[in-house]
């Protein structure tokens, strides 16, 4: 068990290394001189040289990378070009909001997706199945920023074009209260729910073809027991394995959702920094989000392994 965790950790290290390398090189992909960006187009030469010196831009790249990594390990992600504050502080205050948003959306999509998928598979090829799958297809195809805007129009500001009712149950912006959280979670979680529903259904249908399902029927079990006790138990396994990936998907998607709902999370900070060309902050956020994703993925994997140590599929 411990050896599995350690091995999994060992596998994660090169990935984290690659991620940091890529994020580091982002700054060097920028056309032009970062120092000019900071000081402005017309800054005197000495000032530019000064900045070069201060940021270590004169060092050879490997040294720069080494310094960058060394700083990261010490929790230093650099300073913002704009505000002059340490990037880590800027990020720390926003991180919990984005994290919450992603977690709630993940829970929402798993819950909805699993139920819908199981129902669809149970009533395979019926009207219910078809409707669920059509809705899932729509859910998958919706641009989530559009969904967000429409939800705001319909359920927050009470502007309801082509809808027979008008309401302002929920809040169109911000984060914290229930009213504020419902719409962003739906916006962010819908695509994930659709994906999980489709996956659960196909996984269920695969399992229902297995020999041991026939065995369960031959035992004299009712169809309900066959489906819920025998089929679902195996069908859920591939679904669980993608929860980590799903979470990352939503973590990335939160950028858009935060923008639509004016939530002051990492995503919004990221977009502001991109607009302001504040690259240390951009780098920092990309790094933090990716690291979070990798680590959550790792944790889900390990938990899954712990719970399913005995459930290893044979063959």
């Amino acid at each position: 068990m411990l050896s599995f965790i350690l091995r999994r950790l060992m596998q994660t290290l090169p990935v984290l290394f690659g991620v940091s390398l890529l994020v580091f090189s982002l700054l060097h992909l920028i056309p032009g001189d970062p120092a000019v960006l900071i000081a402005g187009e017309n800054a005197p030469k000495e000032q530019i040289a000064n900045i070069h010196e201060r940021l270590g831009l004169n060092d050879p790249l490997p040294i720069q990378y080494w310094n960058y990594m060394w700083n990261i390990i010490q929790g230093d992600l650099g300073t913002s070009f704009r505000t002059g504050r340490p990037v880590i502080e800027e990020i720390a205050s926003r991180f919990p909001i984005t994290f919450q948003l992603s977690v709630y959306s993940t829970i929402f999509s798993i819950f909805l997706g699993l139920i819908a998928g199981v129902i669809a598979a149970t009533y395979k090829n019926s009207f219910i199945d078809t409707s669920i799958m059509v809705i899932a297809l729509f859910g998958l195809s919706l641009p989530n920023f559009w969904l967000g805007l429409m939800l705001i129009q319909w359920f927050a500001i009470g502007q309801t074009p082509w809808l027979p009712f008008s309401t302002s149950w929920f809040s169109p912006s911000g984060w914290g209260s229930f009213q504020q959280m419902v719409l962003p979670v739906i916006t962010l979680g819908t695509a994930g729910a659709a994906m999980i529903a489709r996956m659960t259904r196909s996984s269920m249908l695969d399992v229902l073809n297995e020999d041991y399902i026939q065995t369960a029927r031959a035992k004299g079990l009712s169809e309900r027991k066959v489906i819920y006790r025998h089929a679902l138990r195996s069908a859920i396994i591939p679904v669980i394995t993608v929860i980590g990936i799903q979470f990352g998907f939503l973590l990335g998607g939160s950028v858009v959702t935060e923008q639509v709902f004016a939530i002051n999370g990492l995503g919004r900070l990221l977009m502001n920094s991109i607009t302001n060309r504040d690259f240390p902050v951009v780098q920092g956020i990309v790094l933090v989000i990716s690291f979070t994703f990798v680590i959550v993925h790792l944790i889900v994997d390990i938990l899954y392994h712990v719970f399913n140590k005995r459930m290893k599929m044979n063959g």
Partner: protein
Amino acid sequence: MASTKQPLLSVRHLSVSFFTKNDEVKAVDDVSFSIPKGQTLGIVGESGAGKSMTALSLLRLSQPGEIVTGEILFEGENILKKKEREMRKIRGKDISMIFQDPMNSLHPTYTIGQQLREVLYTHEHLNKKQATKRIMDMLQLVGISAPEKRMHQYPHELSGGMKQRAMIAMALLCYPKLLIADEPTTALDVTIQAQILTLIKELQRKLAMSVLIISHDFGVIAEMCDHVAVMYGGNIVEMADVHHLFEKPKHPYTIELLQSLLRKDRHTNEKKVRPIKEPFLRSEENGTGCRFAPKCPYKQEICAKRLPPLIQDEHNHYTRCWIASDDR
């Protein structure tokens, strides 16, 4: 059959079909047989002959194949007329089944004990202690050593032979009157096959069950069965007492199969291996005639036109052939 008593199971004119949008494929076509109490019937045939479908129909688990016509009398009652709820009480209790592939026939994420216990909870009102006792006894009976340990293991921790033993234990937990074994040893090695076959025979005697064995292997059939039915293209083409069938096969298909067996005498006498014309014609392509007609060396005009009836001779030997006679 010869038995004067009422048979435990008798199947009459059973037909099972698969329906596609505009097509009907007959998997089992007008099959009748019966199994007397305590006896063993073997159904033998090549792949696609409809053996497994016939077996599954006895539990009404032939879906997506639909039972079109016929009746299945189990202890005198037609189980095709029963409600699904009543049918469930028969499955696993009065009629049990073991399947071909022990690797996939047990649920991979439940322990052996859990899977066996489920049968008892479904059919008998036993408390946990009684159930465990019964399971342990049964595991011991099927030759699984250290049953306490095995009960807590998952299928993937057992070898193929062990899994098949566990499957047998599960099938026998409620002391069924009929055990259906669908190719019970095909996925196993010869030495393990010998163990399992011996076990089934032994248990049949101990528990006084009737057994239906499905196999493609004439060796298994000869060893295990009292009566044999040969299936081809969904039909029973020949059915007789096992000694009679092996000594005096009448249907050209049976003769063909028995001749193609690679036995000792074959080694010196190769000429007897007569190639059957390829390609195989699928049964559905042959309209109304005898299913075997396209490949039959003795084919006559009538064979392609009309399906011969299953005719009984004085030895209770049934043959479905227009031209079969004792002198061949």
